[in-house]
């Protein structure tokens, strides 16, 4: 049986409208107007144990609402949802004992305490056996390299250090399912790589299912074999990254460093960027192969350096969101 089953999930929020000006504020005391926001309009997907899924969408699409329902915080209006065989919001305590959640923007650690004391407290809260706790702690501390900061109060940690500790905290009770919400936000490059590598290992070696919600497309590209795109409360797209690329359009990029500033016009390619001798061209590999295009260019212009690559994933996703908007409107 799939680890996560979601079917026709619906949730609407009633938001009070704010009135403008003094008269509006006074009127607002007497009578409040409301509008209905449909955060989830029939979301459905399944996730098997051991998958590493990216869950993306524009702001306000319903990502965090979905995660809140899946983690048991929020009760939906309609629909079916089962995680590890339980309905999250009906069996809250049982359910949360078997999942881990990391919020990139809020720490779950106790601010004034040394890190290790937060871990000890969590051990008692989650009722973990002492030897299991010790074993897991040792592995996680080594994997995320936080041995040196275990005795440091959380408020003295850097963002990268704190994030690594939060990941450890979320895994101390050995959950088979991990939700990560913006885990690399604000981190410097080495920290990002460390966290990414850890997640990859966790998923590959231990089979922990990971649901990753993020705006950082590099994370998605580096980690996720499968991406689910949500927009305006509906699943727009669900498949591999390559399938996503294919869906949006198969343009590839050719970046050139020419010898001169001469203007460039090549049939079969359009100019995306131009700065002095540096040119970025977009072309459709179905119509013209990279080799042919390069040949065409070098016939007319001496080239100092070149690079062929896929368009940045941000662009793919942005295009995807635009298409989603068109489709749903």
């Amino acid at each position, binding site marked *: 049986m799939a680890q996560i089953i979601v079917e026709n999930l619906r949730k609407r929020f009633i938001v009070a409208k704010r009135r403008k000006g003094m008269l509006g504020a006074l009127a607002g005391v007497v009578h409040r107007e409301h509008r209905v926001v449909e955060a989830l309009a029939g979301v459905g997907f399944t996730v098997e144990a051991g998958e590493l899924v990216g869950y993306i969408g524009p702001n306000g699409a319903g990502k965090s609402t979905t995660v809140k329902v899946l983690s048991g*915080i929020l009760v939906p209006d309609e629909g079916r949802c089962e995680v590890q065989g339980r309905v999250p919001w009906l069996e809250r305590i049982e359910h949360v004992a078997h999942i881990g959640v990391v919020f990139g923007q809020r720490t779950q650690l106790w601010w004034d305490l040394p890190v290790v004391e937060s871990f000890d407290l969590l051990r008692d809260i989650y009722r973990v056996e002492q030897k299991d706790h010790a074993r897991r702690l040792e592995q996680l501390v080594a994997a995320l390299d936080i041995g040196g900061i275990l005795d440091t109060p959380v408020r003295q940690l850097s963002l990268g250090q704190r994030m690594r500790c939060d990941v450890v905290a979320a895994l101390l009770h050995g959950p088979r399912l991990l939700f990560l919400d913006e885990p690399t936000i604000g981190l410097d490059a080495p920290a990002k790589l460390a966290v990414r590598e850890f997640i990859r290992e966790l998923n590959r070696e231990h089979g922990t299912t990971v649901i990753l919600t993020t705006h950082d497309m590099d994370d998605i590209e580096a980690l996720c074999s499968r991406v689910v795109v949500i927009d305006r409360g509906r699943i727009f797209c669900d498949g591999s990254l390559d399938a996503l690329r294919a869906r949006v359009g198969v343009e590839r990029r050719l970046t050139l460093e020419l010898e001169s500033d001469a203007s460039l016009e090549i049939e079969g390619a359009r100019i995306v960027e131009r700065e002095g001798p540096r040119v970025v061209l977009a072309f459709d590999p179905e119509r013209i192969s990279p080799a042919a295009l390069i040949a065409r260019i070098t016939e007319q212009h001496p080239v100092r350096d070149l690079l062929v690559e896929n368009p940045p994933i941000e662009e793919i996703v942005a295009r995807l969101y635009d298409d989603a908007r068109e489709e749903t409107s």
Partner: protein
Amino acid sequence: MFEHLRLYTRYFAVSVRSQLQYRASVLMTMIGHLLVTGFEFFGMWALFDRFGQLRGWSLAEVALLYGMANIAFAFAEAAGRGFKIFGKMVRNGDFDRILLRPRGTAFQVGAQHFELVRLGRLLQGLAVLGYAVVELDLIVSAPRVALLGSAIVGGACIFTGLFVVQATVAFWTVESLELFATVTYGGVETAQYPMAIYRDGFRNFFTYVIPLAFVNYVPALAVLDRPESFGPQWLAWMSPLFGVAFLWLCLQGWRVGVRHYRSTGS
């Protein structure tokens, strides 16, 4: 049950250790709280000095009520502080994390903070109670001590319940209504004086809606061997029952609040 107690002790240790990092400040503030309540008692003393008695109650007798009420309230204030800061938690989104832990929400919110400085009021309450016992020449017998103890337990439960109610409001409105400070701090001020001096409507509210009379006035009558009766003698021993029942009711209200939070998403 014991497992919860063990976890509570851990939370308690964490909270206290965190506060003891600022030892000097804690001590000063505790003395401050001690003196605050001391000044209030001076006001009461001054009135007795001038008027002699309060409807047949002497200063020492009222001091007994005063001591009991303040000791009970001090415990509730110290232990229930988590509920006080709860409003901020909801606004920050920190309550979500509470929901993500495999423990009861009220337990977590209540256990998260034990405010040491509130024990300043405890010291003052004990001092006033001590004065009352000495001044009244009360024999410190086991039943008397048990009666006082059970009354204080009941009182602490009621005041804690009121703090829970105050926190529950935060699920609905952002402003933790000052309204409820009325009932908590107003409640302890009311309990410091004999219920007999209050108007009927007022007295009934603090007897039947919030059973403060049963955890303070009625046991005091028994301890002081006073002639007034408020029902059968054994009622004086029922304080913990009233307290726990009231607290239980308040916690039901809390659950309604949590349900509301989980369906509206804060």
